[in-house]
């Protein structure tokens, strides 16, 4: 017969100082793990939100980033009328030639400056980004030195509000609008008129990339093959989703660091849990004896103390979740080695992550509780009752 769980719960309550301290120790370990997972999760979801499966990104053969790629206007004209490209409402092919470079902006929290993606784009390119919305001001006008900044740029850089001027290239640019891409990467980019930007950076013939919208998924695949095999172009095409997927690499470093740190902290706190449980077993020697006299088997004693340790750790896991919850939605930025610029995103503390944290805590509790529980179950009735 099993010992009721209430027995364990009441025990944890009676010895509350020890319970709280042990749980808090486990909680902090879980909190570190969760904070890192929430960071990486936020980065992933931001990059996933940035790609459209129907869209194809064209770069120069050999480049894996828009920054190190070059596409000439002549190449673009050749590509624009390939079959399988969707048409916009006005009947134009959905194909956008773009130029990307990086500019360094200084802010209050980063006086050294942060690398930001600057994108020269035309109106069709804006139309092709379905989740891109203007949240304030207006779009830039063709032929003028005007830029629209992403939502998080506007938040982080006081100099990038509407009505202010940014200085880069050959002079000043007026900030005329703020755009939002949901959680997408364009939130941390600056958009300007393609011709203005490319002439400012003296690159009218060496633009960065072309974005094409296919009519359907099959056409997208065909388009990718068509462009990659076209010897004249010397270009490479990939699905926009794959392109952003490849950028999640910068999160991997941090994810490894986080897992490494939490495992080491986990070893420490499972030893602490073991200590607590050994003390609990020692103090309750007489109780254990009584339970045995009442007819509970060694197995149920073992199980009961094991469960108590897991309960203690689960409590710690919940504490860890509570500690991390305030991070949810906090914006942070992380460097991206592919685009050479920073992408901003929100920490995402999802239920899955929290469940993972509690599970991690319970594993720690199980590891820490096994030996004390088995030592409790091995006590002889008489010695236990004598309380030695």
């Amino acid at each position, binding site marked *: 017969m099993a010992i009721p769980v209430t027995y364990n719960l009441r025990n944890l309550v009676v010895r509350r100082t020890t319970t709280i301290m042990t749980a808090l120790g486990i909680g*902090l370990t879980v909190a570190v793990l969760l904070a890192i997972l929430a960071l990486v999760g936020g980065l992933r979801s931001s990059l996933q939100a940035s790609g459209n499966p129907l869209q194809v990104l064209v770069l120069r053969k050999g480049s894996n980033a828009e920054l190190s790629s070059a596409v000439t206007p002549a190449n673009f004209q050749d590509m624009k009328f390939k079959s399988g490209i969707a048409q916009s409402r006005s009947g134009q092919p959905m194909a956008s030639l773009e130029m990307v*470079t990086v500019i360094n902006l200084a802010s209050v929290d980063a006086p050294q400056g942060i690398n930001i993606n600057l994108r020269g784009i035309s109106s069709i390119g804006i139309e092709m980004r379905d989740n891109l919305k203007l949240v304030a001001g207006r779009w830039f006008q063709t032929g003028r030195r005007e830029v629209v900044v992403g939502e998080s740029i506007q938040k982080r850089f006081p100099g990038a509000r509407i009505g202010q001027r940014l200085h880069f290239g050959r002079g000043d640019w007026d900030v005329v609008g703020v755009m939002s891409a949901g959680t997408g990467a364009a939130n941390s980019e600056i958009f300007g008129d393609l011709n203005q930007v490319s002439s400012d*950076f003296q690159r009218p013939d060496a633009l960065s990339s072309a974005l094409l919208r296919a009519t359907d998924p099959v056409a997208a695949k065909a388009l990718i093959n068509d462009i990659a095999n076209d010897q004249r172009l010397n270009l490479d095409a990939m699905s926009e989703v794959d392109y952003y997927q490849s950028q999640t690499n910068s999160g991997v470093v941090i994810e490894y660091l986080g897992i490494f740190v939490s495992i080491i902290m986990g070893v*420490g706190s499972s030893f602490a849990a073991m200590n607590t449980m050994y003390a609990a077993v020692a103090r309750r020697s007489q109780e254990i004896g009584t339970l045995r006299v009442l007819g509970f088997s060694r197995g149920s004693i073992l199980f009961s103390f094991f469960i108590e340790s897991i309960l203690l750790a689960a409590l710690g896991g919940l504490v860890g979740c509570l500690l991390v919850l305030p991070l949810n939605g906090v914006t942070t930025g992380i460097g991206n080695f592919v685009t050479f610029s920073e992408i901003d995103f929100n920490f995402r503390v999802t239920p899955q992550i929290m469940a993972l944290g509690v599970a991690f805590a319970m594993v720690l509790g199980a590891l820490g509780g096994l030996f004390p529980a088995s030592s409790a179950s091995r006590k002889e009735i008489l010695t236990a009752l004598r309380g030695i």
Partner: protein
Amino acid sequence: MLRFLPFVLKNSWRNRRRTTLTIVSISVSLCLLGVLMAIYYAFYFTDATPSQALRLVVRNKISLAVPMPVFYRDKIRQVPGVREVAPYQWFGGVYKDRREAKNMFPRFAVEPDKILNIRGEMQVPEDQKKAFIQERTACMVGKALADKLNLHLGDRIPIQGDIFPVNLEFTLRAIYDAPENNEVLYFNLEYLDQALGAKRWGQIGTFYVLADSPESVPRIAQAIDDEFHNSPVQTKTESERAFQLGFLSFLGNVKMILLSICAAVTFTILLVSANTIAMSIRERVREVGVLKTLGFTRSTILTLILGEAVAIATIGGALGVVLASLLCGVVRQGPAFSDDLKHLSIQPPVALACLIVAATIGLISAFIPAWNASRISIVEALRSTE
């Protein structure tokens, strides 16, 4: 006070299992803290090496991704205190298969004689130096890189261009050894220019500048930036160390991440230690009563208990430092994105800081239970049934 030391040690060894668990748990956490502090120390407290302290990096003010006119070198050369200017062009490109991490190493187009001059710490045999300078398609790689990719003198190394629309093939003519930046490929800028032909652009990514003394570095940086202040293309000049740290900020707010993990670890150790000390004192209330009866004063009892906690925590700390230096060895082997991590080790200040943290944690965690125990009345203590 010291005559109580055997007593303190005996006491702490009474419940061996608990003491061992506590020491292990503290040492594991402190090992982590030690490694994190070592990383922090390596990034933010390590001074530039003597040769590094003489170098500056000039780039376009807009960002590192935007080049500047190559003719700037003549004006930079004229700034007082500048001994040498070396153009550095990041080539990027692909070597064999990009998916393999070991194939991702930096490639720079440089002027061979200038780079050898400006990076005096590089050790290259004289005949290899000559070959690298004279042969247009020659290249030079670091010893660490040559070992990793199993490259030998005379090997051909093809690199497919991405930023530049040319594919180059180099012949390995020199292998250098240097304490830092030992995994780089340098090749002749002239080869790149000729390969580009009509497309050569008269632009350069960065200039490395050699100063005549470390003291003149800030002044030179200011003078160079002032020189181009009113030009269409402005520059940003910083010391090589600052330039490298700029790359680090790329990973996000590294400082904050490191500090907050350190804080969480420290707090966890504090909890573990406090819990153990509280448990062991609770068991011993009656003994405290006996000690008091024998004439031990409050302050002596307080010191005895605190001493025990500090001893346990410091032993854990010392063990942690040893573990941390082992762990640093593992980090050194790992894929390092920063040169600082390749030389990671526990420096004396870091070891000292770890021990101080450990001892302080022992002291703080024991204070409240020790204080209460020392104030308990004899009768009450003797009556205790724990």
